């Protein structure tokens, strides 16, 4: 008994813990998520009420059925009276169902309208899903204002952002539970989703459509900041990569450009210009590496470069043969990409 009680308390604590956090539909931090939250709450109330009513009627019917059949044999005149009661009850019941459905349809219609309304002066972002990472491009006024990053979305609070969704290989789904619903990214088709964050904070996005071996490790960070902080971040991202100064870092850059790294990755302002893997120009400004798989610390970066297949089996990043000192130099160079 004591064990069962403890189990219940634990379950309740876990359930309540799920109501907060960086990846949670019940903790809306955006206009769209709030709209969807209204639908969810309305559905909970309407459907919950109907469920309770049906259960109550079922219970009372079962209770009454315990009487012997002979007790039900009513005289003819009182039978008409009983039918009158039944008629009124059924009419009321139908009225209740119709009202509930009208409420659900109206809320759904109004929220759909609200979701389709983008709002003034939206920020334009292009997100391309790949197995298993997110390519992010901020489309400014012309190519010189274009910000390239990966696995991270920075949004200014209060300003709508229209995210253009592409996919390169298979179908993925873009989902930041705190900000909005899911939208699929489909190869050969462009989808859109609008995000209007209403409070600052760090949230987590996740691929929501099974897309292969590492689907579970295909996440991204969302940082909602004040418009001033966002602008400062955008300016810093537009800068080219700083040239390394230390001997180890310079050696690391040479190895990076001379070996397989530069075949897939881009570091703006250097010879590495490939667009197949994530852009690394400002790698260290991001919170995580390998699409939300590891924190962005030196040790984790070293582990990831040394053996990507051990961290994320099946990832398209191959294990590049590097000696220990070469690995150290490459990671020292990556640490300079701020």
């Amino acid at each position, binding site marked *: 008994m004591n064990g069962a009680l403890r189990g219940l308390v634990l379950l309740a604590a876990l359930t309540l813990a799920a109501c907060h956090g960086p990846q949670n539909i019940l903790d809306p931090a955006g206009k769209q998520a709030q709209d969807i939250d209204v639908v969810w709450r309305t559905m909970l109330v309407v459907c919950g009420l109907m469920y309770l009513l049906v259960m109550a009627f079922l219970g009372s019917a079962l209770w009454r059925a315990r009487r012997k059949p002979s007790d039900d044999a009513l005289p003819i005149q009182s039978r008409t009276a009983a039918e009158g009661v039944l008629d009124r009850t059924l009419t009321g019941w139908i009225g209740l169902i119709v009202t509930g459905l009208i409420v659900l349809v109206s809320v759904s219609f109004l929220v759909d309208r609200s979701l389709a309304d983008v709002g003034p002066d939206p920020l334009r972002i292009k997100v391309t899903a790949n197995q298993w990472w997110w390519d992010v491009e901020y489309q400014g006024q012309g190519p010189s204002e274009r910000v390239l990053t990966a696995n991270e979305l920075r949004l200014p609070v209060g300003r709508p952002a229209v995210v253009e969704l592409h996919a390169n290989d298979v179908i993925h789904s873009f989902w930041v539970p705190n900000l909005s619903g899911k939208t699929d990214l489909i190869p050969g088709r462009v989808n859109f989703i609008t995000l209007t964050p209403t409070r600052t904070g760090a949230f987590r996005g996740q691929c929501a459509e099974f897309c292969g071996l590492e689907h579970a490790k295909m996440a991204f960070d969302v940082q909602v900041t004040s418009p001033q902080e966002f602008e400062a971040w955008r300016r810093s991202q537009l800068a080219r990569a700083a040239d390394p100064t230390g001997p180890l870092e310079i050696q690391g850059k040479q190895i990076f450009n001379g070996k*397989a790294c530069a075949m897939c990755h881009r570091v703006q302002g250097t010879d590495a210009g490939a667009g197949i893997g994530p852009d690394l120009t400002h790698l260290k400004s991001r919170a995580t590496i390998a699409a939300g798989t590891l924190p962005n610390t030196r040790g984790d970066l070293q582990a990831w470069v040394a053996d990507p*297949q051990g961290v994320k089996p099946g990832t398209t990043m191959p*294990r590049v043969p590097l000696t220990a000192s070469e690995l150290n130099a490459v990671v020292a160079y990556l640490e300079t990409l701020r």
Partner: protein
Amino acid sequence: MVASAWGGRMFVVLATACCLTACNRENRALDASPAETGPRAVTVSDLYPGAPAPTPSDPRAQEYEGNAQHIANGQRYYKWFNCSGCHFNGGGGIGPPLMDDKWRYGGSIEQIYASIVQGRPNGMPAFKDKIPEAQVWEIAAYVRSLSGNADKLAAPSRQDGIRAIPPINNMDRAPPTGDPTPSMVGPR
């Protein structure tokens, strides 16, 4: 009666065995990190004093050629590393075509692997150190499949690029032949 029950059981066992054999088609060795050995001595032309020395076969050849996963990866790297920039989707353009039966520097997977790693005269760059060896083997397996030389069980039926010829698991095998005049002709 007993005999027919036995027959049924044998059928189930055989069918299971067949299904399990088919699993190897896409066997994924995610943790494989083959030793970087570089290409072995390969012959790249038929011009030899005396008897031609045969190209020693590499034990990795069969593993890469007979595996759908490796061929599919090779197809992806073929595009990513811009092989298609010169060879297009196999039909050739700046570089020679890869889907015919003419091979200037040999058409075995070992020879294709060596050509990618070492580079070849008149424009083929050397990809040594630029592409890890396992990925070069995968590209070589895909290049060989372009002319119908892949294991038909492993070759993909669907192509990423535009193709003017049938799917490569449905092509007649084009056995590799040496180009009769390798150094006399320029670009096609």
